[in-house]
């Protein structure tokens, strides 16, 4: 019995050690990033770039390219890996100069962006500042976007038109608005406009539509145009048109059931798996029954002794 107690206390010790370890590492994980001190001479550097529309738009496109993956679309640090939140009080309280210094330095998983010219980095800083601004700070305008299709002999042309809607419902062509045009695919939107598509003075952009985009079995595509401008509320339009290549349904993608989900399970497989599984377990249960019989038999002969 002494040995048993000994063993019990051993198990208890090991258990509490393990619990302590899990506790410590959990809180180690939950803790935020360590402080990142910035030298004073870097903090006092002033941002020479005005946070105007051009700067913010350039900043946004650079942010999308370089920062979004980790810091997330809205800058909350909710990207693919754990990253600092850019909208937190803590982050926003530092000076622009301090942020620039950090962009130059890099730390841990965060790379150094020294290779980029400073004016581009200032644009990003301006954009990051705008992330934490509350929506009511900016007066948002409304717009509608519409699509027009124009099929010439060999060439297919697409026109997206943006009109600003005033408070009295009046529509006016909006100039210099960025419009993203793309085709809906399985895992997202395939862009067909270049990254710098700004509407002309009559509110339009024209795109030559590529011929090699694969549609469904009728060649049908869903084309999506959306307004991408920080002064405007989101607006988008989607239209179907048979401008894609025909993608015929074939046996291998439609019927080949071994690849597909359980709705397509081949009957022979369903039957052999289920029958096999059930019969093995029936036999196991039968043996369990025999063992039970052994016990009953033992109890009987134990009584008769």
């Amino acid at each position, binding site marked *: *019995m002494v*040995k048993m107690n000994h063993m019990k206390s051993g198990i208890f010790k090991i258990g509490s050690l*393990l619990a302590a370890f899990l506790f410590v590492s959990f809180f180690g994980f939950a803790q935020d990033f360590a402080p990142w001190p910035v030298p004073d001479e870097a903090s006092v550097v002033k941002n020479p770039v005005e946070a105007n529309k051009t700067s913010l738009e350039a900043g946004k496109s650079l942010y999308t390219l370089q920062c979004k993956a980790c810091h997330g679309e809205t800058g909350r640090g909710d990207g693919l890996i754990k990253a600092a939140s850019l909208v937190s009080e803590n982050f926003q309280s530092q000076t622009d100069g301090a942020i620039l210094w950090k962009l130059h330095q890099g730390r841990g998983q965060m790379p150094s962006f020294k290779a980029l010219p400073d004016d581009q980095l200032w644009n990003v800083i301006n954009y990051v500042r705008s992330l934490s601004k509350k929506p009511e700070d900016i007066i948002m305008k409304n717009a509608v976007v519409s699509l027009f299709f124009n099929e010439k002999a060999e060439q297919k042309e697409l026109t997206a038109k943006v009109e600003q809607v005033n408070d009295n419902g009046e529509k006016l062509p909006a100039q210099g608005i960025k419009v993203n045009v793309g085709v809906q695919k399985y895992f997202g939107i395939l862009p067909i406009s270049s990254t710098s598509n700004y509407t002309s003075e009559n509110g339009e952009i024209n795109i030559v539509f590529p011929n090699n985009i694969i549609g469904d079995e009728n060649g049908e595509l869903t084309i999506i145009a959306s307004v991408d401008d920080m002064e405007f509320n989101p607006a988008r339009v989607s239209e179907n048109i048979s401008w894609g290549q025909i993608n015929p349904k074939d046996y291998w993608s439609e019927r080949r059931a071994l690849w597909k989900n359980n709705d397509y399970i081949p009957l022979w*497989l369903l039957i052999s798996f289920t029958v096999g599984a059930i019969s093995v377990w029936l036999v*196991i249960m039968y043996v369990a029954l025999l*063992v039970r019989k*052994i016990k009953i*038999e*033992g109890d009987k*002969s134990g009584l008769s002794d």
Partner: protein
Amino acid sequence: MSATPNSTSESGNKTYEQIREDLIRPLHNNSFWNQVWIRFLIIVIVLGAVAYGHQLIKGLGLTAMRDYSAWGMYISNFVFWVAVSLIGSLISAILKLLTQNWANPISRISEMIALGAITMAGASIVIDMGRPDRVLNIPLHGRIQSPIVWDFFVVNTYLVISAILLYLPLIPDIAILRDRMTKAPKWQRKIYEVLSIGWQGTQEQWRLLKKSIRIMIILILPVAFSIHTVTSWLFAVTLRTGWHSTIFGPYFVAGAFVAGSAAVVIAMYVFRKRLKLQDYLTDHHFNMMNKLVVLTLLIYLYFNINEYLVPGYSWKRLDGDHLQELLMGHEAPLFWMTQILGMVLPIILLLFKPMRKPLPSMVIALFVLIGAWIKRFLIVIPTQFHPQFPIQNVPEHFTHYIPTYTEIAVSLATLAGALLIITMLVRVFPVVPIWEEAHDRGIHKIFKAEK
């Protein structure tokens, strides 16, 4: 393999009482070194558990598994443990059905190894999961077309069958222990009391027991073959070079018997020495068991030649890249070491009778077993560095796989786990079946339980 049916030990005739006491004696003797061994295993398991806890919190990023090598050491371990576990079916089922009675004293060793190994096979899969709490999604939401679902089913079924097949022939022995081990600690006596299920050794009980055992040794065969064939299909149904092979099923099964037989030889040696069972695990048993090792090795060699010669002859582009790496490139030293030290040399050495003696054959079996593990590693890892589509823009360290300390610690813990299961079973139950041993030595009385 020529077997002498009803082989008797060289050490002359023993009475039933002598046999019984010889086989029970190790259970009384909780030696100092035994306790040191158990504590050592527990320490290794705790270290592994700490590493695993760390992995649970920080995620699989702590392993060396990346875009190329998405399967690493854990999956190699899984394949290895499944392989080792197959030995229970080879010795207890195949040899028994072929009436190879020399193997009767080894059958329980093989069943204990099978139970320890299959438990760790299941554990290895869960360890490899980033979200182990979602393991039940496999039976709940799995596609029946997926080999993962078949594997989940068959591993669990084999675990249950292995436990039953270990338990059934134990019942009469447990009844003996219930009556003889009156000085054992209370928990141990309670185990005997419950597990002996009122065994009295009546004729009807013997009839039911023999029937149950017979059903189980037939049932375990298709399940054992399924488990390792399905494990091989996890690889073979992908379109990957080095995996996409039609002989992968039998290739894995043959390799499994090699690994398991080697494990049994090592266990036989250790038990013979530590538990003083020289009269029960004799040179004759080592001789026969090592002939079995040679047989399984020869079959495995045959499959190896098929597996490497055919793609090596046609040398398709990706196959060629893969084989180049394996036979002549970066993996070549490990590959040839495994093939020669773990397969070819053991075959040659074991053809000579002195090499089939306990000590030399145990050393050879160690090489075979370690080779078997490295072989699993070489099947799982190198293939993944030859994907059909190149993987782009990855850091340099993604392009090779070296297990991290976390992986090594957790893997060692599974090894210690299997050894602890076997050790604890041997602590509580006799490793050589008492009633079968008596029966094989011509003592034909059906034991009435002694009160």
